[in-house]
C-alpha cells in the first residue's frame, strides 16, 4: 500500500505548494479590495476600518494559516463584494462553466482524434497534407481573432445574425443550444489544430509498430486495424492528453470565453475576484483548482492501470 500513500503525500505537498504561491501572489501582493468597498468621500479612519474588517492588517503567517485552515475545513465564507456565500456561488457557477466548456472540449478532442486517425491512415497522401496544413493554420490563429470573427459572422447584422452576441439565459435545451453554439464553435476551432496534430503523431507512431504490420500482413481490414489496434493501443497518450488539458482548456479557457460572451461561470468569477481582490472567492477557487488538479492526476493514474495492465 506504499504507492497510494506516496501519491497522497505528494498530492498534499502539491496542494500546499499551490495554496502558498497563490496566497503569496493573489492575497499578499494582490489588490486591496478596500478601495472598492469604501464610500465616495472616505476618511483615513474609515479606510483603516475597512482594512481591519477585511483582515489586511494581520501578519503574513497568520493570514496564511487561517487560509489553509479555512480551506481544509471547507469554511469558504462569503464574498466580500456581493455578500453571497462562496459555496453557493460555486454551486451556481461551476455547472454553467461545465455546460459551456464540455461540448467544445469533447467535440474538439473527438474531431481531433477522428481527423488524426484519417491523416495517419492516409499518411503522406494529399488528404494527410491537407489536414496537416489546416492544423498548422488553426494553430496560428489567435483565439481573440476567432472569437471576434465568429461574432461578426454569426451574431451581427454584418453576417448571419443567427445567434446572440453574449449571455446565458438558459431555461431549456433549445435555449441552451442557442447560447452555447458560438462559444462551442470558437473552442473547437481553437483546439482542433493542436489536437489533430497531436493525435496524428500518436497514431502514426502506433501504426508503425510491428503488431500493426503483422495484422495487416494477416489481411485484417483497415477499419478493424484502426479501431481495434491503433486506437485502443493509443489510449494511454490519448487519456494523458485529455486529462492534462482539462485544467488548461476548461479552467483557463473558460475565463476568456466567459468574459467575452458574458457567461456567469466560475472562470469569470475567479478573474473578477483576482482583479478586485475578493479573497474568500479567490481562496476557494484557487484551492479547489489545486485539489481538482491533484485528483485528475490520481484519476489519470488509475485509468492507466485499467487500460494498460503493463503500467505498474
Amino acid at each position, binding site marked *: 500500500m506504499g504507492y497510494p500513500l506516496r501519491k497522497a503525500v*505528494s498530492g498534499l*505537498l*502539491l496542494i500546499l*505548494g*499551490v495554496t502558498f*504561491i*497563490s496566497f*503569496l*501572489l*493573489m492575497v499578499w*501582493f*494582490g*489588490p486591496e479590495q478596500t478601495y472598492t468597498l469604501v464610500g465616495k468621500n472616505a476618511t483615513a479612519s474609515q479606510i483603516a476600518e475597512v482594512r481591519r474588517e477585511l483582515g489586511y492588517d494581520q501578519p503574513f503567517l497568520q493570514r496564511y494559516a487561517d487560509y489553509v485552515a479555512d480551506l481544509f475545513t471547507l469554511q469558504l465564507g462569503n464574498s466580500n463584494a456581493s455578500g453571497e456565500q462562496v459555496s453557493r456561488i460555486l454551486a451556481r457557477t461551476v455547472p454553467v462553466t461545465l455546460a459551456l466548456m464540455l461540448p467544445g472540449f469533447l467535440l474538439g478532442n473527438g474531431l481531433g482524434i477522428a481527423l488524426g486517425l484519417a491523416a495517419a491512415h492516409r*499518411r503522406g497522401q494529399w488528404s494527410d497534407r491537407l489536414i496537416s496544413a489546416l492544423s*498548422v*493554420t488553426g*494553430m*496560428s*490563429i*489567435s*483565439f*481573440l*481573432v476567432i472569437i*471576434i*470573427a465568429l461574432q*461578426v459572422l454569426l451574431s*451581427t447584422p*454584418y453576417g448571419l445574425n443567427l445567434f446572440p452576441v453574449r449571455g446565458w439565459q438558459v431555461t431549456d435545451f433549445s435555449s441552451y443550444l442557442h447560447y452555447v453554439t458560438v462559444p462551442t464553435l470558437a473552442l473547437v476551432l481553437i483546439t482542433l489544430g493542436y489536437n489533430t496534430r497531436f493525435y496524428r*503523431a500518436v497514431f*502514426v*507512431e502506433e501504426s*508503425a509498430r510491428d503488431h500493426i504490420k503483422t495484422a495487416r500482413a494477416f489481411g485484417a481490414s483497415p477499419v478493424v486495424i484502426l479501431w481495434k489496434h491503433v486506437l485502443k493501443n493509443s489510449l494511454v497518450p490519448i487519456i494523458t492528453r485529455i486529462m492534462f488539458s482539462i*485544467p*488548461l482548456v476548461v*479552467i*483557463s479557457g473558460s*475565463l*476568456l470565453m466567459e*468574459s467575452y460572451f458574458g457567461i456567469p461561470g466560475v472562470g469569470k468569477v*475567479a*478573474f473578477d475576484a*483576482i*482583479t478586485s481582490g475578493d479573497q474568500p472567492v479567490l481562496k476557494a*477557487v*484557487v484551492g479547489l*483548482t*489545486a485539489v481538482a*488538479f*491533484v485528483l485528475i492526476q490520481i484519476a489519470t493514474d488509475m485509468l492507466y492501470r485499467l487500460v494498460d495492465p503493463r503500467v505498474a
Partner: protein
Amino acid sequence: MAGERSIWAQLRADPAGLAGLAVVGLFGVVAVAAWLGWVGQDWSAAGGGRWEPAGPDHWFGTNILGQDIFQRSIYSVRTAFEIGLVVAVLSTLLGALLGALSGWYSHGWVDASILWLKGVLDSIPFYLFVAAVAFALQGNAWAMHVAMIATFWTTTGRLVRAEVMKLKTRDFVLAARTIGLPDRVILRRHLLPNTVHILLVQASIAFVAAIKTEVILSFLGLGVQDGVSWGLMLAESTQEVLAGHFNNFLAASLMLFALLMAFNLLADALQDAFDPKQAAQ
C-alpha cells in the same frame, strides 16, 4: 557536429520550412528597423481623420483617433519580437537549466523539488496566474514577461530532464565521470549541448505561445501598457467592427497570422530536421 550538414540539407529540402524561415526573417528585419527608429515611429501621432479608409496617406487607413494603422502594425512587429524573444530565450534557458539539474540528480531531492515546483505552476490556471503576477508587480512593464517565463519553462524542463536522464547512461558521460570531471562541467560541456535540438524547437514554440498570450493579455488589459501591439489593436477593434470598421482588425489579425504561421512552419521544419525518423512519416 557531424549531423549539422544534414540538418541544413533537410531544412533546405523543406519548402514550407524555408518559406517560414524567410517570412520570420522578414518580420525580424522589420522589428530591428522599428527598434532602430527607421520605421513605424509615427504610431502614436493622431494625424488623420477618424476612421479614414485605406489611401495614399494612410496605407491601411486610420483608427478612431486618426492614428495610422499601418504605422501601428509595423511598430507592433517590434513589440511582438521583443516579447517573443525575451520570453522564448529566457524560458528555454531556465527550462534547460532546471531540466538538466533535475535529470542529472534524478530521483534525488533536487529533482523532487523541481518536479514539485513544476506541478505547482502547472496547477494554477494560467490566466489567473498572469493576472496575479501583473498585480503583484504593480503594473510593471515586465510583469507579463515574468509571468510567461515562470510558466513556459516547464515544458522545456520536462523534455530536457527526460533527455538528460537518457544521456546520463551513455558512454561518453560515464567516461567523463570516471575522469573525475565535476558535475557542472559535464552538464555544461557535454549534456546541454546535446539538448540543443530540443531547445531550438521549444524556443520557437515558446515564441509563438508568447505572442499569442500577449494578444489575450492586452485584450484583458494586463499586457502591453505603453506602446502598441497587435493585441491592443485587436482590443481596439472589438468596438470598431460593430460599427463596420474592419481595418484595424484585418491589419492586426493578418500580420499576426502571417508571423505565427511562419514560425509554426519553421518549428515543424526544425523538428523534422532534427528527427529524420519522424520526418519520414
